[in-house]
């Protein structure tokens, strides 16, 4: 397996990429520069679906209200 020697050595070299000095400090400075974007708990899937369903129901209700205005205004035969 002579051909694997440079291959394995190369993989080891690629695995040894060093993190630039002060990297963590730069990340933390980036966070402090944008404190308004503090992480918060995400809405659960159920809550997201609930909000979406409620919005759809409100839209449907409004559409029905508009249709009812036209239907009520038509003369009966």
């Amino acid at each position, binding site marked *: 397996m002579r051909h694997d020697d440079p*291959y394995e*050595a190369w993989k080891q070299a*690629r*695995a040894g990429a060093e993190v630039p000095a002060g990297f963590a400090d730069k990340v933390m400075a*980036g966070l402090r520069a944008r404190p308004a*974007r503090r*992480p918060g708990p995400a809405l659960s899937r159920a809550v997201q679906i609930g909000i979406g369903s409620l919005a759809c129901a409100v839209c449907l209700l409004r559409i029905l209200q508009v249709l009812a205005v036209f239907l009520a205004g038509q003369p009966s035969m």
Partner: protein
Amino acid sequence: MSDDLDVIRRVLDGDMEAFRLLVTHYQGPLFCFIHNVIADTHDAEDIAQEVFLAAYRSLGAYDPGRAAFSTWLFTIARNRCRNALRKRRPLVLNELPEAAGGRAPDADLSEAEWFKQLDQALAALPFEQKTAFVLAEVQGLSLEEIVAIEGAPLGTIKSRISRAREKLRSLLRPAAEQP
């Protein structure tokens, strides 16, 4: 894993400095991954920073029941790398460049020259093959972790890794066959 969750809880409770623990713990493997995929130290550092900032902002959306924190981070990193490469180079090279810029593989090449050839070959791999190869062969992640990061079936992941490995090793084969 439970340590990560404790730290994440602290961050979500408003302890921003606790996030530094996550950064220092994962900066090595994350930077290594990005550096190998992007092949530019400066860009890799920028992207790694973006990944941690994005992770901080989205930390509330992280679900420990679905994936390990490291898997979640690598997934963000992979997506960022894809976006960066799309911006940098609209055409993805699907074929390997000629070995050593057109030269035939040579048994007398120095290690540095071999490495240069392999670096070029890695950079020329299709994105999916490159990320799967780096995660498996360079980072040493398990196939299960790679499946979660790449979002592809196990068979597909195995195939991508195998193809990438074969392309890279094919650079070296002619030299090995020489007496």
